[in-house]
């Protein structure tokens, strides 16, 4: 889930003209009526900005998210796992593509938002700043990270902005496949040798808390939730989604014979929820501030790929231009 509300607060809204106030009311009425807003419809500027930020952050997360898992493609332990992991990472690239396309419907180009990522101005999900140290991390990411993504993204399938909602429907189908695949890796490890089971527990220990952080700051501290909720971009609060994730995931961990690394984790009969311990929000802030274990590496790798590919993109453009010119010449000759 790649949609932590993280960025700086929007500039203070300017007072609206009478005409804008009327448009704005009509817009809100459509949203309240659960109608989809489409690219050519009138929308408040702040709505557009919020969506551009959220969709492009989400797209960047898919792209940066290719790196930690890509780290194991060449070391996957069987040909079946190798093919499945490569296909998964490829899917994430596809998610990035749909999401950049959805952002483009709001009037920003892919180049523009990618530049914001590379310059460090745009954020991406904090989770991808953690390293994949063993093969079990590939299982843990599929199970937990894709699992958390689904929790967050299923409600986005009903997001008021049509192109985003439609992209999410497509993406969610693939994310749930990834989640099952990751869990299946964990099942295999947990049922394997003592060493493999230890790898699985170690991966859970390292990914558990960062996954809980994926849902963003606790309610009340989140900067964008109010407007996003009114606009039906966001339908559940960070804490609600986090609780849903914990409730779904703890029994899955127990089924694997693994223990989440939280001594305070306990089932509360009265509410039917799993209660969990305090999240280390200082760690979260550090990761967001660029001081996570892999922030620097992730950006360096993205920048290098972009810089190394510049001559290829230029060649493709130059060739397309030559081909156009030749075609035009040929048509002129024929005329």
């Amino acid at each position, binding site marked *: 889930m790649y949609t932590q509300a993280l960025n700086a607060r929007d500039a203070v809204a300017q007072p609206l003209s009478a005409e804008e106030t009327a448009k704005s009311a009509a817009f809100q009425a459509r949203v309240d009526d659960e109608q989809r807003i489409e690219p050519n419809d009138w929308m408040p500027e702040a709505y557009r900005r919020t969506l551009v930020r959220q969709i492009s952050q989400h797209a960047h997360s898919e*792209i940066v998210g*290719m*790196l930690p898992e*890509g780290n194991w*493609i*060449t*070391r*996957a*332990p*069987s*040909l*079946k*796992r*190798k*093919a499945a992991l*490569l*296909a998964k*990472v*490829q899917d994430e*690239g*596809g998610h*990035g*593509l749909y999401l*950049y396309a959805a952002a483009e419907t709001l009037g920003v180009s892919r180049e523009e938002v990618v530049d914001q990522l590379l310059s460090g101005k745009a954020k991406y999900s904090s989770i991808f700043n953690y390293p994949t140290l063993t*093969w079990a991390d590939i299982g843990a990411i599929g199970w937990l990270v894709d699992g958390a993504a689904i929790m967050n993204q299923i409600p986005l399938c009903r997001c008021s902005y049509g192109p985003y909602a439609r992209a999410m429907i497509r993406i969610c189908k693939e994310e749930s496949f990834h989640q099952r695949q990751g869990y299946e*890796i964990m099942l*295999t*490890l947990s049922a*394997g*040798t003592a*060493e*493999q089971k230890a790898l699985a527990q170690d991966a859970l220990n390292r990914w558990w808390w960062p996954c809980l952080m994926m849902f963003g700051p606790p309610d009340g501290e989140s900067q964008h939730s109010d407007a996003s909720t009114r606009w039906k971009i966001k339908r559940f609060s960070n804490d609600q989604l986090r609780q849903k994730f914990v409730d779904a995931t703890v029994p899955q961990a127990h089924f694997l014979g693994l223990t989440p690394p939280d001594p305070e984790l306990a089932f509360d009969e009265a509410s039917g929820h799993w209660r969990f311990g305090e999240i280390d929000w200082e760690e979260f802030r550090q990761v967001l501030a660029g001081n996570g274990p892999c922030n620097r590496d992730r950006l360096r*790798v993205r920048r*290098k*790929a972009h810089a*190394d*590919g*510049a*001559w*290829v*993109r*230029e*060649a*493709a453009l*130059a*060739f397309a231009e*030559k081909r156009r010119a030749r075609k035009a010449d040929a048509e002129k000759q024929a005329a």
Partner: protein
Amino acid sequence: MPTTSITLSETPLVGTVLRRADDALVLGHRLSEWCGHAPMLEEDIALANVALDLIGQARTLYAYAGEIEGSGHDEDALAFLRDSRQYRNLLLVEQPNGDFAETIVRQFLYAAFADPYWRAMTASTDPRLAEIAAKAEKESAYHLRHAAEWLIRLGDGTQESHHRAAGALEALWIYTGELFEVDAMERAVVETGAAVDPASLRATWDATVDAVLGEATLTRPAGLGVQTGGRSGRHTEHLGHLLAEMQSLPRTYPGATW
């Protein structure tokens, strides 16, 4: 499952199938190294597609090689528990990715061969190989188109891309002769009708290479390259590193299932 390498009873048919399986796996592995690092997102996806096809081809070929070899070696034993001297792939496909031009030239030179190879193999007298070829042929047609289109773009793009493509062609050409090599072992399989004589594909390969290089405004190096050895396990230094990385887990945790 032992961590030491397996020993194979390599009949001519097993050896011939392993050569194709190793080509596909090693090249698929190389292409998979691009994932997340390509010049544009569309190519991350396209190169992964090609890699997935090749890994898929390798899997069916290994499965078949294991069956006819008959000592219970599955696809993973064949991929992960043979060392570089037991690998039978072309030297061309194990060459490092280099820049995008090197990857595209390597891909093009191979695909211009693999595409007619699999098409011809659909007439194999061995029904399993004919079946594998029928699928591989569809995939390799796309692989060839993808590589040829890029080679033309790079050759006829900017000065820099032309220069890089020409350099890559010059560097990789030395491995082209091996594509058409036939030894006594493979000759025996060709004679049964189960495999195609690689040398018989030379004219088709020449025609494809000439047409695409012409459009790409690139000059074809003279003759064919002379470096060979992959088919008998005498590789370049690069394969050992590739295998060390690829095989690390199965060799570190003997007997584990993943």
